[in-house]
Each structure stands twice: as structure tokens, then as C-alpha cells.
């Protein structure tokens, strides 16, 4: 193993322990690690966006030796306007132009994406015959259709939740609760896995207590 790898592993171990020390209480080691995290993360994204977006999408196109494009310059100018925010309120309003562009583009793209895949196709997928297969299958089919329906009822705000409608909304909230329970379980699993990854690093790569 090369010296920089050994050094890196010790450094990473120190950082890991430093952050974990927050569990005991807020302390100087944690503060130091946190500051380095904030700074290095800003630096990391700064560099990544420079090479992957500015260099690839702007420089390589605008300064193409064969056929330079003009279009990327518009994006570049919009981007520069974004930075006006740094220089006081007098010209900061110019930063609204690129912001408007970003928000308009996101709104336009996501509107169709979500509408198709998450609304239309999901409604389409719910439209299925329920009385097919074994008894268990039938129960499952009915539960999926009914659960989706009742869940939608719960989020329907134009009618008071009374009578049958109120009952459906109540069933709807039960389905939502089970859903949240499932998410809860999975989130716990995910968080534990992250910590396992760090422990694997500490006991495996660093201390070599496990193979």
C-alpha cells in the first residue's frame, strides 16, 4: 500500500471518529470536521460543475475549432447574471432572469414527466380486473384498488369527510399509515446500512480486525 493510501485511511478514520464524537456532545473535533466537510463539499461541487457543465456544455461548444456555436453564449450570459447577487441589491434583481429560466424549465419538464408516469400510468395500472387468480390474489387485487381509491379520498378537499365518504377517507388514512410504516422500516434499514459502511471501513480497512 502506498504512503498516500495509508495516510488517507488514517485521515478518513480520524474524520469518521470526529463526526461520531458529536454523539457524545458538541465538541471541538466535531466542529473542525464539520467545517472541513462544509468547505470541501462546496469545493467539490464547484469543481464538478465547472468541468462537467461549464467546460463540457459551454466551452467545448462555444469554442469548437470546427463549428463554434453561438447558442451556449446565451446560457453563459444568463449564468453570469446569476452572480449579480453577490454585489448588493442595486443589480441583484438581474439574477431573477436566470432564476426564471431555471424555474420555467423545471416546471415545463416535470409537469409532463410526472403527469405521465406518476398520474396517468398509475391510474391506468390500477384499472385491472380484480376477480382473477386464487383467493389470496383476489384479496390483494381488491386491496390495491381500494387502497389507492381511499387514499385519494383522504386527499380530496372538496367534500366534508362524513358518512360513506368519511369512512372511505378513514380507510384511506389507514393505508397511508401502513405505507408510512413501511417507509419507516426501510429508512431505519438504510440509516443502519450507512453506519455499517463506516464501521466496515473502521474495523476492516483501518484496524483490519475483520477480513
Amino acid at each position: 500500500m502506498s504512503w498516500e493510501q495509508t495516510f488517507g485511511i488514517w485521515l478518513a478514520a480520524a474524520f469518521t471518529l470526529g463526526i461520531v464524537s458529536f454523539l457524545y456532545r458538541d465538541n471541538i473535533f466535531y466542529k473542525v470536521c464539520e467545517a472541513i466537510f462544509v468547505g470541501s463539499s462546496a469545493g467539490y461541487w464547484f469543481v464538478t460543475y465547472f468541468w462537467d457543465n461549464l467546460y463540457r456544455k459551454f466551452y467545448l461548444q462555444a469554442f469548437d475549432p470546427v463549428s463554434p456555436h453561438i447558442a451556449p453564449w446565451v446560457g453563459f450570459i444568463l449564468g453570469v447574471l446569476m452572480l449579480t447577487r453577490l454585489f448588493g441589491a442595486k443589480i441583484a434583481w438581474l439574477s431573477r432572469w436566470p432564476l426564471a429560466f431555471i424555474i420555467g424549465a423545471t416546471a415545463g419538464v416535470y409537469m409532463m414527466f410526472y403527469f405521465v408516469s406518476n398520474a396517468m400510468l398509475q391510474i391506468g395500472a390500477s384499472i385491472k380486473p380484480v376477480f382473477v387468480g386464487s383467493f389470496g390474489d383476489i384479496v390483494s387485487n381488491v386491496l390495491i384498488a381500494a387502497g389507492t381509491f381511499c387514499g385519494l379520498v383522504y386527499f380530496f378537499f372538496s367534500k366534508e369527510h362524513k358518512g360513506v365518504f368519511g369512512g372511505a377517507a378513514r380507510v384511506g388514512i389507514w393505508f397511508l399509515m401502513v405505507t408510512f410504516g413501511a417507509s419507516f422500516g426501510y429508512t431505519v434499514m438504510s440509516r443502519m446500512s450507512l453506519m455499517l459502511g463506516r464501521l466496515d471501513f473502521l474495523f476492516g480497512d483501518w484496524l483490519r480486525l475483520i477480513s
Partner: protein
Amino acid sequence: MRTREIIAFFALIALILLAKYVLPHPMQFSPTLSLIIIILLSLTFIIIGVLTLQGKFVERRIVFIYVGAALTLPFFMQIELEVPISPEVQSAYDQIESLNPGSKILAAFDYDPPSAPELQPMADAFMKYCFHKGIKVIIMGLWPQGPQQAGQSVEAAFEDDPALRDKIRYGVDYVNLGFQSGNEFVILRMGESFKAMFPADIYGTPYDSIPILRNVKNYSNIDYCMNFSAGKPGTQEWVQGAVDRFGLKLSAGNTAVQAPMIYPYLQAGQLDGLMGGMAGAAEFEKLTGYKDKATTFIKSQSFAHIVVIVFIIIGNMAFLRGKTERKVK
């Protein structure tokens, strides 16, 4: 700092040095010792339970110690646990298993090192399986760090079976196209042409001169797609942009946080199979027969889940008791 804390600090350093230079490497507990440790820890739970029922909630840090122990100790325990297989992982495996040798599979690595504990075991098992079965793998990433993680998986496969080093050739049996920025727009444009988005592979070799890519123009020339995803862009975008618009066939490995939100796609047939989190990874390792990290980790995972559940139960017992007492009054 108080004196006590300073002592604790030096004790910690001593412990680290002890672990690094004195303890056996690797360290292992025999099954009997493991059982004794488990029983002892369970007994201490009773103490906590009694204290809590008396209304004395133990300190946060004690809870932290339990979690730490539950996650750490199983690393050293020589115990075996049988992993149950869920249908969605089985179906992901079946899809890959049904591919003929020589088929081409697109592997999209959309995650970064922080999510690697969950996704890397899946990716490793996937890569080993494909290489042994002779399935050709085209690697790409929508996250900047994805292709690097893929490189680690390839390396893990070679280390696991050194014979693969001679058998599997870069450019013929697998290729790493690298990262392309643009999120869902990359997926959309690949529907027309892969080459437009990846003019060269990660080493700068032009697209057209790579043998494995010779017959690959867009999704229609790909037999299957596997996505490892830790967020956005990820499985949701692949479904929206490639499955729903271009009819790509897709299975996915997800971090456990986002897996539950992906299930509706599974039921609607937009997705064939899904591996969720560490559990999904352990199941996939078992199915492919390449047991590795996830199979070890799932032991710790089990204990950690039990610790959380027991703590919820203890807390709620105290809560319910308080409630009934208030009612009696």
C-alpha cells in the same frame, strides 16, 4: 474539558492502538461466545425496561451505545443466518438469468460512495454474475461518481476469481462509458442515440471503435437494463424517460430510503424487479451465489433492527402505563 473526558479520550486512543497492534487480525468470536454476548446484552435490556417503566428514561448516549454494539459485534460473530428471498429480487434475478450468453446489458450506476454500503454489494454480485455467465455489460453513470463505483465492482469481480482477468476483455466483454451530466435529458437523448451522449468511453476511446458497442445504436439494441440508484436522477427518471417512452426493460437496485416509493412502478409493470437496501443486496448475493459483504452486514442489520424495535416497545410500555395511571386518577 473535564478530567473525566480527558481520561476517556486517552482511553479511546489506547483502545485504538490495542485494536490496531495487539488484537488478532481478523478477530472472531466462537458461536458459544457470541451466544453468551447476545444473552448478556438482552439481560441488560431488562434493566432498561424496568427503569423506563419507573419513569426514568435512560440517557440518549446509552441508547447510542446499544446501537453501536448491535452494529459492531456481529462483525466478529461466527453465526449463520438464512436470508429469505422476496419476489421482487427473485424477479430481477430471473430476468438476468434468462439472458443468453452474449446478450448486452446496460448498467446505469447512479450513486456515490456514501450510498455504497447498500448498493455496492448488489453491483459486485451483479458484475460477477454477468462476467461468469458471459453477459456483456455496458456501464454508464448519471452521477459523477457512478462509473468509479462500477470500476470497483469490476475489480472486485477480478479479485474474486483471478481467472476472469484473462477471460474478460475490456471493450469486448464490458465497457465503461463514464459519466454524462444532464440527468433525465441524457436518458431521453439516449433513446435516439447512445453515441450522441457518449461520443467516447471513459478512457477517451471513440464510440465506434469499441467492439462491444458495434451494434448498439440505442435502447432497442440492448437486451436489458439494470439501474443502481441512490436518489435523483435514478430509477424514477429511468422509468419516466426510458421505460415509458422507449420501452426499455428495466430492473433496479435502490437504497432502502427510496425503495418503498418505487413499488407502484413494480406493480404497474414499468419495472421488472427491485432490490431494496441491504436486505435486497443480501438476497441478490444469495441468488447469484456470490456471497460477500451484504451477507455479513445483514447480521448486524438484524441486530440493529431488533434493538430499535425493543426500544420502541420499552418506550411505549412506559407511555401506555403512564396513560392508564392518568386515567385511574
